[in-house]
């Protein structure tokens, strides 16, 4: 019986972990290029909204897989479009990045609820979940690991890990990644060797928007059949993942797993008999508390990009 619960916890943790990981990777791209991205939440909401609308529009006329692909594409595009506003304010207009981020978060929620009301009459957009994979062929029948990772799962889960691998490779093993990171560490030096700081930062913010938009969709699909204009603060939680993971992709995976596990426990701790029966609020609080503690102990020699949040002014070089 306990083993059953263990499998269930792992499967559920994957649902929470993967969006956190994808969005934190998005945050990583933006912050490595030097732009603070507290707008992840708003971008997730917009991505989830547009993707879910697409699903609910086509679910009767198309089979599952093509719908999912279209929805992913739409979510990614939405994230990019929304990010463009953040990038334009932060990079071209040298505006305060926190203010424009706050604006986007607020706009995302209001937009999703407003247009959901117009399209469906209520705040909720319903959709049919036809994307669940009962068991992945072959892999699902592996003992233990098959139960943990390849049953009751979604294609988006594997896609998330794939993106994580590709993203890390791009950031750390390609010329583009090196240039992007240079813009976040020392934009003046990057500029002096001919790197276009503006273009690189745009790339960072837009990639981050694409991943955040996707993350919103990936968050909603496994856990609900209703989208009501909220991603439950996962954009900010992903920011915590990014910091707790020390801006390092490998550590981000573990941080996302840890926070995802805590979310799972918070949601279902009463069913897990070996855990103390304290309120789910406490489990939900832990990620933020541990992130604060990590910040307090590492900030003197922080892993954050050196020029994070700094407006790049060519004239001051």
């Amino acid at each position, binding site marked *: 019986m306990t083993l059953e619960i263990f499998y269930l916890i792992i499967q559920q943790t994957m649902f929470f972990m993967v969006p956190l990981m994808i969005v934190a990777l998005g945050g990583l791209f933006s912050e490595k290029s030097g732009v603070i991205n507290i707008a992840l939440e708003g971008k997730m909401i917009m991505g989830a909204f547009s993707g879910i609308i697409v699903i609910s529009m086509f679910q009767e006329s198309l089979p599952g897989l093509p719908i999912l692909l279209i929805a992913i594409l739409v979510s990614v595009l939405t994230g990019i479009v929304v990010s463009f506003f953040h990038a334009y304010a932060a990079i071209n207009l040298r505006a305060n990045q926190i203010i424009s981020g706050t604006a986007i978060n607020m706009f995302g929620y209001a937009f999703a609820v407003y247009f959901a009301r117009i399209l469906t009459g209520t705040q909720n957009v319903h959709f049919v979940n036809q994307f669940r994979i009962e068991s992945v062929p072959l892999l699902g029948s592996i003992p233990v690991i098959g139960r943990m990772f390849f049953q009751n799962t979604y294609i988006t889960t594997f896609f998330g890990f794939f993106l994580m691998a590709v993203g890390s490779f791009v950031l750390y093993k390609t010329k583009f990644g090196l240039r992007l990171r240079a813009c976040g560490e020392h934009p003046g030096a990057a500029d002096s060797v001919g790197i276009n700081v503006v273009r690189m930062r745009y790339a960072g913010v837009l990639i981050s928007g694409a991943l955040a938009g996707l993350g919103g969709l990936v968050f909603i699909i496994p856990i609900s059949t209703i989208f009501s204009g909220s991603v439950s603060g996962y954009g900010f*939680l992903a920011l915590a993942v990014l910091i707790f993971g020390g801006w390092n992709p490998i550590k981000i995976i573990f941080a996302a797993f840890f926070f995802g596990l805590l979310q799972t426990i918070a949601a279902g701790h009463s069913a897990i008999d070996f855990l103390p029966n304290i309120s789910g609020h406490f489990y939900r609080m832990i990620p933020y508390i541990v992130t604060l503690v990590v*910040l*307090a102990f590492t900030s003197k020699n922080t892993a954050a990009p050196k020029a994070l949040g700094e407006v790049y002014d060519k004239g001051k070089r």
Partner: protein
Amino acid sequence: MKKEGLADILSSILVVIIGLLIGLMILFVSDAEQALPAFNTILTFGFSSMRNIGDVLLLATPVILTGLSVAFAFKTGLFNIGASGQFTIGSFVAIYIGVEFTHLPPALRILLAIVGAAVAGGLWGAIPGLLKAFRNVNEVISSIMTNYIAMFLVNFLIMNGLSFRGRYLLNPIFDQGRGTTTRMPDSSVLPNFGLQNIFTDGMRSSHINIGIIIAIVTAIIIYIVLEKTAFGYELKACGFNKDAAKYAGINQNRNIVISMVICGVLAGLGGALNYLVGTGLSMSTVDVLAPEGFMGISVAFLGLNNPLGIIFSGTLISYLFLGGTRMQVFGFSVQLIEMVISIIIYFCAFVSLMKLFLMDKSTRFMKPKEESR
């Protein structure tokens, strides 16, 4: 200097107009026939009766205070995105005292609720302040964390109370049916000193109370502290140039903590004034951050981070909100106003740029022949 002030105000007004025009476009896209009457409602409803004016002021009270909180931080070189959490903590303390301390005489109870909320908010604000001063933690990031901690903590305390070895230190104040805090007794509501007789449409009165007066007085005090005292000057000096301030012998760490505590006091006070009202407003236990804190960001920047300007920007934002709520009779949801406000915040982000543009225009207008470049 004077021209700069004018350009400031003009750019703020321009930002609001841009926001409203985009809002109008969205209305047209969603329902062209109802768009104009709905838009008209947004623009005029707040002024349509004395009662509505009272309601605008009632709505403005908390956001003026969170706006002051954000602005005070900004003037001292900090960004207080944590107003939401400070507001939440303050709200909880005020509601708890209002609901549970019924053995105290009402006047004392209300005073205690207000002071308690302000102190609690201040303590909550101290956390990012201390982390910034002594551990060099970016206050924006730590405030995001403390916002969520505050929300979960308060929701927990509302629903479960706090017990130690079977004894309640804090009682739960949860109304299961409504999913909110228990309703405040009428004796815990802020007095209105006859304001409700002024702000009435003959049939019904606004629930306006002295909260708005407290908010305005607070704004004036903050203005005096920032502009007319050595203490305020010191705090601002840290914001302008922290190295110069340090060189001048100003204790920077102490000032950061003090600034954040004051920010927290302001936001916490806003929480108290928001909930000690006679409208039956209760605190929800849904896991959503208090929007008043983020509204404070728009109020602060629209008010040019000037405490006196914030009285006006807070009132303006609330005016739009009241009209937006009313607009629902035309089939539009109030989120339109939230969109408009978020657009306003977005443009506030580069208000300084707009100001330069306006000043440039006016300079050319005044001396057309003297092109200096």
